[in-house]
């Protein structure tokens, strides 16, 4: 028995080695980064208007992704990312033109009036059937929000939140963030929906509510205006990813994706996230 199982293990190991060896050469060909640098020169990029880069977003463009609905100011996280990608591709600020496209229209199949669109698009398999996405430029973080009058408003560290009564929607990464990262002493409160959780927050039944960052800005900005963002929780679980949206099979996809990848590796995206989401928009990072 022992020898036969060892023989089986050896065969299996051999098969694995053979499989990896067989796969190895294939792996290098589709990687665009190496070849991208040569063909992704500004002159050879088939943009809508040669020499110009047309970037789209929604009208109005909301804070903290854009500032005062003016994408061409380059202020706000997504505006800054858009200009950083443009710069990486060799476009000066003056070469960038902005256009406005509704969120739903951008995701729908059909001709596009932009080179790429930046508008908090989550990358999903369903959407990939209709459009192309770049590599992710932002991984959504979980965020604690509280009423301005709450005892936890203005707290700055995870340890400060241990004594808080926190709530989240059932089955979400937000709940995981409470149990796995914040680990408060009181049992978390769990709700069927964010609507129930928001009511409990307003009633003061919970000190803080954990939601993802875009939702946090929406709730504090539009729905419960006497609530404020306490801070962002370190990454947990499988986060949602935002990508730049391009036309299906766009010739630009690999170049734009490569540029995002380089910005990510260089730490530029992280810095922009720090600057525009943590400092300017006030979603400090809790540690």
């Amino acid at each position, binding site marked *: 028995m022992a020898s036969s199982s060892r023989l089986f293990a050896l065969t299996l190991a051999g098969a694995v080695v053979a499989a990896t060896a067989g796969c190895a050469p294939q792996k290098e060909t589709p990687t665009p980064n190496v070849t991208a640098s040569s063909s992704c020169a500004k002159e050879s990029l088939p943009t809508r208007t040669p020499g110009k880069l047309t970037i789209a977003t929604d009208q109005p463009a909301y804070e903290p992704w854009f500032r005062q609905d003016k994408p061409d100011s380059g202020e706000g996280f997504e505006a800054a990312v858009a200009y950083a990608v443009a710069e990486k591709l060799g476009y000066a600020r003056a070469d960038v033109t902005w256009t406005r496209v509704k969120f739903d229209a951008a995701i729908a199949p059909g001709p596009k009036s932009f080179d790429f669109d930046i508008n908090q698009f989550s990358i999903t398999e369903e959407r990939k059937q209709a459009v192309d996405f770049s590599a992710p430029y932002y991984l959504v973080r979980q965020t604690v929000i509280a009423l301005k009058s709450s005892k936890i408003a203005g707290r700055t560290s995870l340890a400060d939140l241990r004594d808080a009564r926190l709530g989240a929607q059932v*089955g979400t990464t937000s*709940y995981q963030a409470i149990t796995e990262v914040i680990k408060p002493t009181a049992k978390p409160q*769990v709700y*069927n929906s964010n609507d129930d959780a928001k*009511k*409990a927050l307003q009633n*003061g*039944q919970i000190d803080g509510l954990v939601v993802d960052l875009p939702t946090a800005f929406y709730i504090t900005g539009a729905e419960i205006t006497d609530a404020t963002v306490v801070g962002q929780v370190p990454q947990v679980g499988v986060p949602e990813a935002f990508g730049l949206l391009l036309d299906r099979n766009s010739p630009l996809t690999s170049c734009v994706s490569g540029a995002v990848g380089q910005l990510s590796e260089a730490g530029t995206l992280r810095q922009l996230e720090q600057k525009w989401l943590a400092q300017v928009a006030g979603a400090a990072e809790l540690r």
Partner: protein
Amino acid sequence: MTSLDHLPSEAQLRRSAYRRRQTVYSVLVAASSTAALGTLLVVAVTGAPGWERVRRSFLDLEIARDALPAVLSGLWLNVRLLVCCAAGALLLGLVIAVLRTLRGPIFFPVRALAAGYTYTFRGLPLIIVLYLLTLGVPGLRLQGMPPVLVLGGLALVLTYGGYLAEVFRAGIESVHPSQLAAARSLGLTYRQTMRHVVLPQAVRRVAPPLLNDVVALQKDVGLVSLAGPIDAVRAAQIATAQSFNYTPYVVAGVLFVLLAIPLIAVTDWVTLRSARRQSGG
């Protein structure tokens, strides 16, 4: 001599032998039909093309073991709520039933209020009462607002109190008027009549349906979880969301059945006893 007295006749011997054969025969038939049905069920379920997939996503032992502590600690909440709410609802139901059966025109407003209560809370879906009390009332921001569990328990007591009041009322009205007349003629006051003559008979008669409602309440107390607390089903839901496997729900279901068995057994026993008493008396 005595043995002679008890010597059964030839016919009697034949009769008892025949009866024995019949008993053996029916036991054999029952056993084989049960075995046949059992085999059929097992084969039909495990032989189904999707059985392997269902077994993996609903009956995974390892996931069951992982989820058990969380589900058990959720179940503890159910048990505590059940005890408090059952006591509260039985008491409220009894009081409302007595108020509804008060005689005399002066008590009309009391009767009307009690009737209005049973109409309203039997008609109102429990989940809406829960929402109003657990997420609506705290919005008033009054001083000394009780915790959400107490409010949720109150919603359960209010809803089940309505059902139980009607059961109690049926019991009270089932006591024959001659009993009341006899009690009054003995010089008992209305209150004494109720306390010593009517209620003991009424409660005994409706004990089975009352316990039946308590069994139903046992499953409904978990709905309090919509206001935040984590009960057994919610704990199972959380575990399911993490593992993409439905086994935790099955674990919670089995625990609920185990919890219900003693209560159901008591109900059956009480029913049986009262039936015997009535037929015997």
